[in-house]
Each structure stands twice: as structure tokens, then as C-alpha cells.
């Protein structure tokens, strides 16, 4: 058996009693069943269709260890750049997998908004979690997601009662600190919006230090009738880190989801978005951007399931690749038989800044109904030499011209981020990485 699977199975046996929810039969059984699924499915390999572009050797070659979680001696100053401006967002900070209350700030949460640790909820009121345990991941070959389901130690639980509006964004920061031996963290977060509730949730992943570690993350989003969620994901871990994560959204009628992902970090980062549009007039707007340099490998996958008639999806994914970086976009749109009046748009545009960078952009439409308006497009190009000359003729040197053109390429997705304080923070985080440097 694969070393990582073995470590995980041992962890479930050895630490079972410490895992949150152990005392609740439902949660304990769910963890065990998930472990069985993980063992059956096995870890992903490039023989699996949806993993064929994803390097997987690191999964078998690296020895990731579990860590007791937490970290002492972290100064809030260390986190300053990693959080949207203090005082303008509510925030929960998780360090090496566990919630750190001293680093978090939830002052002034309005009534009807519950934000807390999944670990605490599983221990104190496991029945509140039970309805969300079985929210399955719909993609293929989900061995890693099953491992998360078996072993998650903590995460954020967010619930808005019907009609409640969260006026300030809520940020969930998942931070890993470097250790001598690389560790694996498996956060699971759940965000539930009651009927007509509205919120913005920013989920960000970062590393303190330059070390390797493995984040196997999972997020469950549930949007009630008419709810509106702006979910923003920033993947900006160390250039030696590995990240495989998924967001699973279920939308009831007339709900609206903006799912934005900005991926800049990681030696390997793979993000999957799964959306189930399960009620009339539900719509989702997934946006995605990856910016990769060096030998980074970044992947964005989306699976949009139009399960109900009269639903809409509109996706725009962009990639910028420099050096020897590799990028993958795989967008699946599924419309089953009998579902009507669907509008689905998908666009992916990619910019290659070097001869050695590579992109695999693959739209995958699985339409089994006639009453559908479906559009998709994919472009791959390099910087426009004419535009570079134009900018140089105005006095900008070539490097500055290229940087401005790259910024221009990604700006359209950045400008969709509101409010300005969040947009500017994202822009700073993009610039602190390898973007157009």
C-alpha cells in the first residue's frame, strides 16, 4: 500500500479517539466509511482520466507526517500581509490545521451568524453537523477527498440564518508553518446560507516559511433559496508546497454563487470546483486565475451540474504561465436529459510568457438535452509584440511593458472582486508572488 495511505490509516487507528466527533456514532462511522472508500479508490494516478495531466509521484515519494496541530509563538504581526485589512473583515485563523482563537477576530458578528470551529461543533453538538456529512464530492477518482472526509481535524463552520446579511467579509485563513519534516493538513469547512442570506467568504491558504507541506482541503457550500454567496479562494502557499482541494457547492432555487479562485502558490496546486444547480433560477459565476512561474504546476477544474431546468452558469478562467510552468484548465458542464432552458457559458484564456511553459485547456461539455444555450471558447497566446512596441514607444522599458500587459490580462477578473479593500489585498498578494516580475 502507498506510504501516505498507510500513514493515514494508522492515523485513523491511533488518533481516532482524538479526532473531533469520536463520541458521535454518525461521525465515527462516516470517518471509517470514508477511509474504506479511500483505500478502495486509492490515491490518484496519471492513469485516471481526470488526473492524467497531474503529476502524482510526489504522493508516493514524499513522507508526509501528521502534526498535532497549532503553533505557539505566532505573532499577529506575522499574519498582517496574509489578512485583508484588520478591522474590515471578520477572520478565523487556522494554524497547521487547527483553529487559533488568539489570532482570530470575530467582533461584531451580527445576530443569526454562527462562525466556529468544526472540531468544537463536532464535539459539542455533532447533530448539527450530521446533515452535511454526506455532501458528496461529485468528481471522479476522489481518493484524496475521501482521506479528508476520514481525517479532518478542524475547519470553519459558518451558518447564516434566513434573511441574514453579513455586511463585512469573513476571511478564513489556513496557515501552515514550515517544519523539518513535511506535514499534511486536512481542513474541512462548511458554509451554509439560509434562505435569502447574503455573505462574502474569503478562504485563503498560505505558508509561513518556504517549506514543503501538503494541504488536502475540502469546502462545502450550501446556498438556500435566494441566497447569495461571494466565495473567494486564494491559493498562495509556498513554492514547495502541494495543495489539492475541492469546493462543493449545492444551490437551491434563485440562489447566486460567485466562486472566484486565484491560484499563485505551490509547487503543485490543484483546485476543483463542483457546483450542483439544484433549483430553478439558480445561477453560478465561477471565475478563476492561475499565475505560475518557475516549475510550478497549477490546475483549475470546474464541474457544473445543471440538475434543474432554468439554471445558468457563466465561467471565465484565465491562466498566465512563465518559465517552465504547467497549467491545466478542465471545465466540465453537465446537462442531464430532461433538463431544459439552460444557459451555460465557459471561456478560458491563457497567456504563455515563455517557450517552455505549457497549458492544457480542455472544455468538456456533456449536454444530453436540446433546450440549452451553451457557449464555450478557449484561447492560448503570447504577449502581443505590437502592444509591447506601442508601450515602448511611449517610454516604458520592455520589462515594464510586459508587466503592464500581464496585469492588463488579469485585471478584468480582478476588477470583478468587490469591495475595493478585498480587491486591493488580492492584487497585493498576486504581486508578492511571481506575477509579472
Amino acid at each position: 500500500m502507498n506510504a501516505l495511505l498507510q500513514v493515514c490509516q494508522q492515523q485513523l487507528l491511533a488518533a481516532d479517539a482524538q479526532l473531533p466527533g469520536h463520541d458521535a456514532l454518525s461521525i465515527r462511522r462516516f470517518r471509517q466509511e470514508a477511509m474504506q472508500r479511500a483505500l478502495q479508490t486509492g490515491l490518484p494516478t496519471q492513469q485516471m482520466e481526470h488526473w492524467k495531466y497531474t503529476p502524482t509521484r510526489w504522493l508516493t515519494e514524499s513522507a508526509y507526517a501528521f502534526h498535532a496541530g497549532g503553533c505557539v509563538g505566532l505573532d499577529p504581526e506575522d499574519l498582517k500581509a496574509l489578512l485583508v485589512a484588520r478591522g474590515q473583515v471578520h477572520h478565523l485563523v487556522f494554524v497547521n490545521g487547527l483553529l487559533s482563537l488568539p489570532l482570530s477576530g470575530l467582533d461584531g458578528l451580527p445576530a443569526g451568524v454562527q462562525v466556529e470551529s468544526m472540531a468544537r461543533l463536532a464535539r459539542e453538538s455533532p447533530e448539527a453537523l450530521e446533515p452535511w456529512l454526506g455532501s458528496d464530492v461529485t468528481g471522479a477518482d476522489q481518493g484524496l477527498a475521501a482521506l479528508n472526509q476520514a481525517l479532518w481535524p478542524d475547519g470553519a463552520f459558518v451558518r447564516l440564518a434566513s434573511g441574514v446579511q453579513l455586511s463585512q467579509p469573513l476571511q478564513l485563513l489556513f496557515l501552515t508553518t514550515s517544519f523539518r519534516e513535511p506535514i499534511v493538513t486536512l481542513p474541512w469547512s462548511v458554509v451554509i446560507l439560509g434562505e435569502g442570506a447574503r455573505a462574502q467568504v474569503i478562504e485563503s491558504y498560505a505558508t509561513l516559511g518556504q517549506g514543503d507541506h501538503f494541504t488536502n482541503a475540502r469546502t462545502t457550500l450550501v446556498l438556500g433559496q435566494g441566497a447569495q454567496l461571494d466565495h473567494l479562494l486564494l491559493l498562495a502557499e509556498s513554492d514547495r508546497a502541494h495543495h489539492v482541494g475541492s469546493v462543493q457547492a449545492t444551490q437551491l432555487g434563485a440562489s447566486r454563487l460567485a466562486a472566484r479562485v486565484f491560484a499563485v502558490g505551490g509547487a503543485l496546486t490543484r483546485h476543483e470546483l463542483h457546483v450542483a444547480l439544484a433549483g430553478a433560477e439558480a445561477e453560478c459565476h465561477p471565475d478563476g486565475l492561475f499565475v505560475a512561474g518557475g516549475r510550478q504546476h497549477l490546475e483549475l477544474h470546474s464541474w457544473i451540474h445543471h440538475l434543474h431546468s432554468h439554471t445558468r452558469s457563466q465561467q471565465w478562467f484565465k491562466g498566465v504561465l512563465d518559465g517552465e510552468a504547467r497549467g491545466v484548465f478542465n471545465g466540465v458542464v453537465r446537462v442531464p436529459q430532461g433538463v431544459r432552458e439552460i444557459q451555460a457559458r465557459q471561456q478560458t484564456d491563457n497567456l504563455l510568457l515563455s517557450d517552455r511553459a505549457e497549458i492544457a485547456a480542455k472544455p468538456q461539455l456533456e449536454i444530453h438535452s436540446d433546450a440549452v444555450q451553451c457557449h464555450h471558447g478557449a484561447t492560448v497566446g503570447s504577449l502581443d509584440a505590437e502592444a509591447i512596441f506601442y508601450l515602448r514607444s511611449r517610454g516604458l522599458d520592455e520589462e515594464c511593458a510586459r508587466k503592464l500587459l500581464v496585469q492588463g490580462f488579469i485585471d478584468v477578473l480582478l476588477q470583478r472582486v468587490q469591495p475595493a479593500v478585498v480587491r486591493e489585498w488580492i492584487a497585493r498578494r498576486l504581486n508578492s508572488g511571481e506575477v509579472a516580475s
Partner: protein
Amino acid sequence: MNILEIRNLHVSVQRKPILCGVELALQPGEIHAIMGPNGSGKSTLANLLAGREECQVTAGEVFYQGLDLLSLAPEERARAGVFLGFQHPVEIPGVSTARLLKEAFNARQRYRRLPEMDAIAFRDHLGAQAGKLGLPADWLLRPVNVGFSGGEKKRNELLQMLVLEPHLAILDEIDSGLDIDALALVAEGINALRDPGRATLLITHYPRLLDRVAPDRVHVLMGGRIIVSGDMALARELERQGYGWLEEVAT
């Protein structure tokens, strides 16, 4: 000293000779017009002066304010005060005209060892120039030339010229695609930069712009050479007769 001096210039594009011995000198304060039939090398001359790589100089020299222009990179020419108004201005998605001009303006300031202009002062400077051209307030925040009509693109070129205040402006068919009102604004812009320290080279097909800016000299470029020079009377003659009567001179 001449602002621009071109001596016996030979230029090839993709190994095909386009300019074959151009001689031209612009003194401070002068506006010269270059006219000529399609394919005579007018745009190649403009592009060569701005530093486009495709233009290979096979012989000759170009001096700008005494500097060897051909030894400078395109951005160095711009910072030193050379401006090309493009015949076909390029669309730059995601980059606003304000952003482009702030970068360009401050690059020039740094080159000249002058202080950079801060954001507020620059915004005012920009706003004032845009107002002169009758451009709407949100114009500056729109991506450069994206979705602009031909005439709007030309006005945007002129706005950039007014903001960057070049010593040598080369305007390649700045008047094409303009309606009468826009043409008047563009002419005003060109005249606004007419001062004893600067010079302008206008490339055009039509005397209607020249009527409004009154060039000091009018040259005809044919077969890669300037074959005749004169004043406004020459431009009017060309409009009346076309270029046919000059073909003998050209060959």
C-alpha cells in the same frame, strides 16, 4: 541644432528596400508634412524613427537633437522626447490610458533626472489635457483604445502627445478617420505644441489638416526618396493633380 536630421537614409523591411536615400532636416519650431502615394515608404519612415525592429537601416544616419537616434532603443527615444502617433493605434486590454500615461510620463521624468509627478498632480495634468480635446471624464480610465472607433483612437494618440510634450512628434495619418469637428480639435492640439523648442512631422494624404496647421514645408515621398519639397502650394497642387505628374521625377 536641427531637431531632426536624416542623411542619405536607406531602410529595408524583410530585406526589401523601402527607403532609398532620404534627406530631411527639421529645425526647431517647424512643422513639416510628408505626403505621397500608398506604399511610398511614409509609414516605414515613421516606424524607423520610433525604433521598430523590423526596419533595417542599410545605410545613412539619423540625428535627433545631435544624438545618434539609431543607437537608441525605442523607449530611450521616447524618453528623450520622440513621439510616434500610430497610424493604427494598438488596443491594450486591461490597461487604462491614465495608467499608461503615468508610467510613460514618470519614465521620462526619471530619464531627465526630474522629480516624478505624484498621483494627484498627474491626474490634474491629465484631466486638463483631456479637456482640451473634448474627451469625456471616464475616457482616461478606459482600457487604451479598446472598443474605440478609428477617430477615437486618433484622438487618444493626440492626448498622449499633449501629455508627454515631445520635442519631436511624428504623426502618421493622425487625420484619417476623423470627422470635421475632431479634425479641428486635432489641429488645435498640434498647434498647441508649436513652439520654438519643438518640431512636428505630419504624414498625411489630405491637405485639409494642413490647411489648419500651416506646415513650414511639404515634402513628397515617392519610390523611397523625397523627390520634391515646397510649401502649402505643393499640397494643393497634389490635391488637384494627384501624384502622376511626379512619376517622371521619381524615376
